[in-house]
């Protein structure tokens, strides 16, 4: 069942190449970190397949993936704590693939922070310099600077166990900054913290990174975290990169169904390519982009976010992409916006021909029958046009992504 349609692979390859071709900063001649064709197997199980990506100077890249996707292994390979089967790790133009962890000059912020429990905060921060046999004065000066940077001056004599999670994390960062790392690697940096501290620390770390201008690679399974932390996001799924791009690119133009559903909510309808348009059931709407990627008549998936659904009680003015009519099944108030569950009707917007159900989502087998889509509306709209259960609405799409219809991986 895990047969991939070749076109998906080809397309994925193209997307990955695209992201190589366009470095974030054209002026930078080289990448701060470059991971080239890294593969890894444990026994017969393939953990990583041909992972390639680059991190520009000062850039923050997030490796986003579910647990077991291999993202931690990538980080450990960059750090030198594990060896890849194939591929190269290049840090600032230097091939470090064969170097042991201690000679790579990489800063790892472990999920548990891994602060040395028998050392005070200042001893922890100065560790990297002491083992490099730097002079006392230099160590003291650097430690003082870093304590100021992470604002822990008054905690310098404390032991890690006397600090809060956020403070421990700052010590861990300062400890790596002391020896001017080539790149910072954060392993699930906020996993051990509560939600409020998390969002606070995210902003703090982002500001800190901009200040010290050290490239960083984050690992997380939290999409919200990824969107907020990353200059770019690489979505990892079972050992390969599904897509790399800026948060907006990845969110708005997902390269695969996996990316679409992993980053936030996504509705999926099926349709087919008709010239420069997409046929969704009885509706024929203009394809927003790159319809030329597909063959005429090729079955495709139309992916759209709940906020990209346009709802109207009356027929849309001509030109708007109306796809169907639907019945509001449920409305719920979710703070900043309203969420609606809408069951699309077999009949299209314009005609009343009563064709067979044209759409199906690919999530479950029973989705062959009509499955509702989710739409959200911002507050002003909910106040202007009130919708409630049982209302009949016209459903349009402001924005959508077309992907080839493929047998699902796994």
């Amino acid at each position, binding site marked *: 069942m895990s047969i991939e349609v070749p076109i998906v692979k080809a397309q994925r390859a193209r997307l990955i190449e695209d992201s190589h071709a366009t470095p974030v900063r054209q002026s930078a001649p080289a990448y701060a970190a470059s991971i080239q064709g890294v593969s890894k197997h444990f026994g017969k199980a393939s953990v990583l397949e041909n992972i390639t990506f680059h991190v520009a100077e000062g850039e923050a890249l997030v490796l986003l993936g579910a647990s077991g996707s291999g993202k931690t292994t990538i980080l450990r390979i960059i750090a*030198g704590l594990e060896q890849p089967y194939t591929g190269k790790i290049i840090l600032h133009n230097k091939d470090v693939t064969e170097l042991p962890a*201690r000679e790579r*000059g990489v800063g*790892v912020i472990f999920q548990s922070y891994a*602060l*040395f429990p*028998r050392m005070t905060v200042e001893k922890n921060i100065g560790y990297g310099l002491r083992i490099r046999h730097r002079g006392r004065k230099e160590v003291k000066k650097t430690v003082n600077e870093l304590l100021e940077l992470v604002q822990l001056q008054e905690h310098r004599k404390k032991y890690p166990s006397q600090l809060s999670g956020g403070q421990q994390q700052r010590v861990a960062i300062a400890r*790596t900054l002391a020896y001017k790392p080539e790149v910072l690697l954060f392993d699930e940096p906020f996993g051990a913290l509560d939600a409020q501290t998390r969002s606070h620390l995210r902003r703090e770390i982002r500001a800190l990174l901009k200040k010290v201008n050290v490239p960083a690679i984050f690992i997380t399974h939290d999409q919200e975290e990824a969107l907020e932390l990353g200059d770019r996001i690489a979505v990892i799924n079972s050992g390969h990169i599904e897509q790399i791009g800026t948060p907006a690119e990845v969110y708005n133009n997902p390269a695969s169904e996996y990316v679409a559903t992993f980053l936030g909510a996504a509705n999926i309808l099926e349709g087919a390519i008709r010239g420069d348009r997409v046929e969704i059931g009885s509706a024929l709407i203009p394809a927003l982009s790159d319809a030329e990627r597909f063959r005429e008549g090729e079955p495709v998936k139309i992916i759209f976010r709940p906020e990209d659904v346009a709802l109207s009680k009356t027929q849309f003015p001509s030109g708007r992409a109306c796809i169907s009519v639907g019945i509001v099944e449920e409305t719920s108030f979710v703070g900043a916006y309203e969420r609606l569950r809408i069951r699309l009707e077999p009949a299209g917007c314009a005609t009343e021909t009563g064709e067979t159900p044209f759409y199906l989502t690919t999530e479950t087998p029973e989705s062959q029958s009509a499955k509702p889509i989710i739409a959200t509306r911002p507050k002003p709209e909910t106040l202007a046009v009130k919708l409630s259960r049982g209302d009949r609405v016209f459903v349009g799409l402001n924005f959508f992504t077309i992907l080839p219809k493929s047998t699902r991986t796994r």
Partner: protein
Amino acid sequence: MSTMIPTMRHVRGFDLARPLSIGMLVFMMLPLVFLPLLSIFIFGTSKGLSSFWSALTAADAIFALKLSMVTSFWATVFNVLFGLFAAYVLSRHNFWGRNALIVTISLPTAIPTAVAGVALLMLWGPYGMLGRLLRPQGIEVMFTASAIVLANIFVTFPLAFGVIKPVFDTMSRSLEEASATIGATRWQTFWHVTLPSLRGAIVSGALLTFARAIGEFGSTIMVSGNLAGRTQTAPLYIFAKFNEGQIEAANAIAIVLALFSFLIFSVLFFARDWLDVD
């Protein structure tokens, strides 16, 4: 109402089970532990402190105590270093025969001490497998202080290992990995990161080993030759003096050994928290 009764008994009445159970525990320990220990002190001081002191300062007595201390010290040094090394190897590496090695290391405490003595004699003794070859070279291992150290090492072999290994096992690998990524060599990581975390285990392993070694009798008597003033340890001295009927002399040393182990176990009991404090 029935649920009220137990609570009432605790709050207002007197719970008899508590003092009874505590009293019974102490009473049971009285003839088994307290009285025997107490009696050596009572007997030892019954003829005045001066006779106790002269028994203690007898040349052979002082020699026996010194010999016990020195041989136990070297056995402890060896076994702590060995235990550290063995624990490191066995908790860091997984290999075929690992469990067999762990069992073998732990075996010596389960073997009767007299058997340990015989085993050492069969190897190092004048007619032993190795001793036979060493004797013509003029090297005699048995019936010397070295033999006592060997016997002590044998019977206390797994004690330090047994204390250190669990700490190694539970120690987070990420500490050592962090140290490596920061740029430390293996040795620096061991010295600055691993060893400090093992401080408590090393001290308690050493004290346990020392306490056990200083009281060793069964194997020592077989391999040492039990020569007063030459290869007689404190426990052997006690036994010898008792056999000669010099009960005060035996008792004086017994008091010293008893106090000594009491001291060691107090340190173990009260200092562990301090040593393991993070």
